[in-house]
């Protein structure tokens, strides 16, 4: 931008009749100014770059470095090469934690996105009514509170005498009631329900915002052509909110893979590691069993996993947006 302007100015000056000598001076001065501006700009980036380098890039590099060592955090560390990684591949608990994280995607991401889509498609028609406006505030509440608080609330709701079991007894399902978070078969889905509760409002409102941008004429045309609600949803609504779906999926998938707060509060990874997730396992390995190298190896695999899952989703939505 500044380049076009400088040539423009010097052109005007040249036409007025300055000598070629002073023109040369001027150009040099301009180049110097641009260079100085470049240095100023780089200087402005420095504080953010330093904070980022010291508290993100450096620990990131250290995580990779630690992963090749055996270290208890106190005594001398020893180089063990890829040992931590091979041990990870043979360890049921660590592998299980990765499997659990992948399973949580279903609850933290797919369920709220699909429910959100269906609900938003139904609510779309009166999105500007007072009820819908109030619902925006109410449905956002779970996004605002700490996940720890969500964990505490739901631990209580899902307990043996909690509201969930009470409701089940009331509708005659007393036979299936149990301590949902304490049963190895149901603990992971129960943790998933908490995550789904947190994510639903965000997904719904995100998708609703996307749907409000759709031209109503499209729907009217579809109606005239005799399209039913289902047809309408799949041929108009869904394609129009692809980008919003992509965003909702990305955000919630990251929250599933990186789950920590909810699990820490509601189950601590138990019972029998049935809800262990990588984030929590890194915490236990790094700070309780003091296997810093092993914790770091898991952290590296964990990062790779997040990227491997999130990047394809990003690419898909980018292409869809075109």
């Amino acid at each position, binding site marked *: 931008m500044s380049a076009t302007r400088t040539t423009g100015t010097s052109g005007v000056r040249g036409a007025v009749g300055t000598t070629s000598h002073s023109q040369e001076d001027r150009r040099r001065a301009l180049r110097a100014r641009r260079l100085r501006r470049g240095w100023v700009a*780089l200087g402005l980036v420095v504080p953010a770059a330093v904070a980022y380098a010291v508290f993100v890039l450096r620990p990131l590099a250290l995580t990779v470095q630690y992963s090749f060592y055996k270290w208890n955090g106190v005594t001398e560390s020893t180089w063990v090469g890829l040992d931590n990684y091979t041990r990870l591949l043979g360890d049921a608990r660590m592998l299980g934690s990765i499997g659990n994280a992948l399973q949580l995607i279903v609850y933290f991401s797919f369920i709220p996105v699909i429910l959100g889509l269906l609900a938003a498609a139904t609510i779309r028609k009166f999105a500007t009514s007072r009820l819908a406006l109030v619902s925006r505030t109410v449905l956002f509440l779970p996004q605002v509170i700490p996940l720890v608080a969500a964990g505490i609330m739901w631990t209580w709701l899902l307990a043996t005498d909690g509201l969930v079991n009470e409701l089940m007894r009331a509708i005659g399902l007393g036979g299936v009631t149990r301590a949902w978070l304490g049963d190895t078969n149901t603990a992971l889905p129960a943790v998933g329900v908490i995550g789904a509760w947190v994510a639903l409002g965000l997904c719904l409102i995100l998708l609703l915002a996307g749907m409000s941008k759709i031209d109503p004429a499209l729907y009217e045309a579809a109606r005239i052509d005799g399209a039913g609600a289902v047809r309408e949803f799949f041929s108009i609504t869904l394609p129009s909110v692809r980008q919003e779906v992509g965003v909702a999926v990305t955000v919630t998938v990251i929250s599933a893979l990186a789950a920590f707060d909810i699990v820490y509060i509601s189950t601590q990874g138990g019972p029998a590691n049935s809800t262990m997730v990588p984030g929590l396992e890194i915490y236990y390995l790094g700070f309780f069993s003091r296997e810093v190298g092993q914790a770091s190896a898991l952290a590296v695999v964990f990062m790779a996993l997040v*990227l491997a899952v999130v990047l394809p989703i990003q690419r898909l939505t980018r292409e869809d947006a075109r």
Partner: protein
Amino acid sequence: MIVSRRETVVGRVLLIVLMLVTVVPFVSLFVTALHEPGTYPSGLEWPETPYWSNFVDAFQAANMGALLWSSVLIEIGVVPVALLIATLAGFALGHLRPPGHRVIFLTFLLGLTLPFQAVIVPLYYQMRDLGLLNTRWAIILPLIGLYMPFAVMWMRAHFVNMPEDLSEAARIDGAGTWKLFTRIHLPLSTPALSSLGILMFLWTWNQFLLAVVLVSDPTRRTMAGALGAFQGQWGTNVPLLCAGSLLILTPTLIVFLIFQRQFVTALMQGALKG
């Protein structure tokens, strides 16, 4: 648009059900908090005699005054600094575009999907070596760094979208870079800045992992971290735990209800840009 009545009714009922599902856990928390301490109340039963004193007890047990103050101090340490340095970097990368700005920006983007757990182990040893473990700095400093990918991306996107003509006109009028920034760009950035500020405020307030790992004294933690400690201590006394949780939630809820429009916008934009 023609909307059939049946569809509207179904939609309204659905919306009300979803709102109920969202609110009932809060109500349950409140009702449980009013039961006799040490009991295990069931469901949504209103107690015969509500124990309002639970809130007072929880306030004292959790040392709420100190917790609030600690969270406020951490917010003051994190949000203004992060806002300032992210704005400077965003202005430089989005508007001035010095040589190498693409590479720098891509390096920042690297950290965008990074879960905090991936760096928490080295961060612990880094804080130990700096002698900052168990101080508020152990939460403040890493958070500023960890917010940078998102914050710089956010502010850069804002400055990229500012019309060039504006800066050009100011340059022709003889404004230097500093004047251009403070007089033209900054005043026009208030919406972007306030959204980012709200997001970072919320993330800091609710930050749990860093608080649990790096600070063992609950009164030097964030609200969420303190809640974790409170649960560990009072986990068996359910009504008191519920009362404490509610107290810890209240400040967030009040701030949210006052600034609800800004919060919803910020969270939506945050999700869309992230």
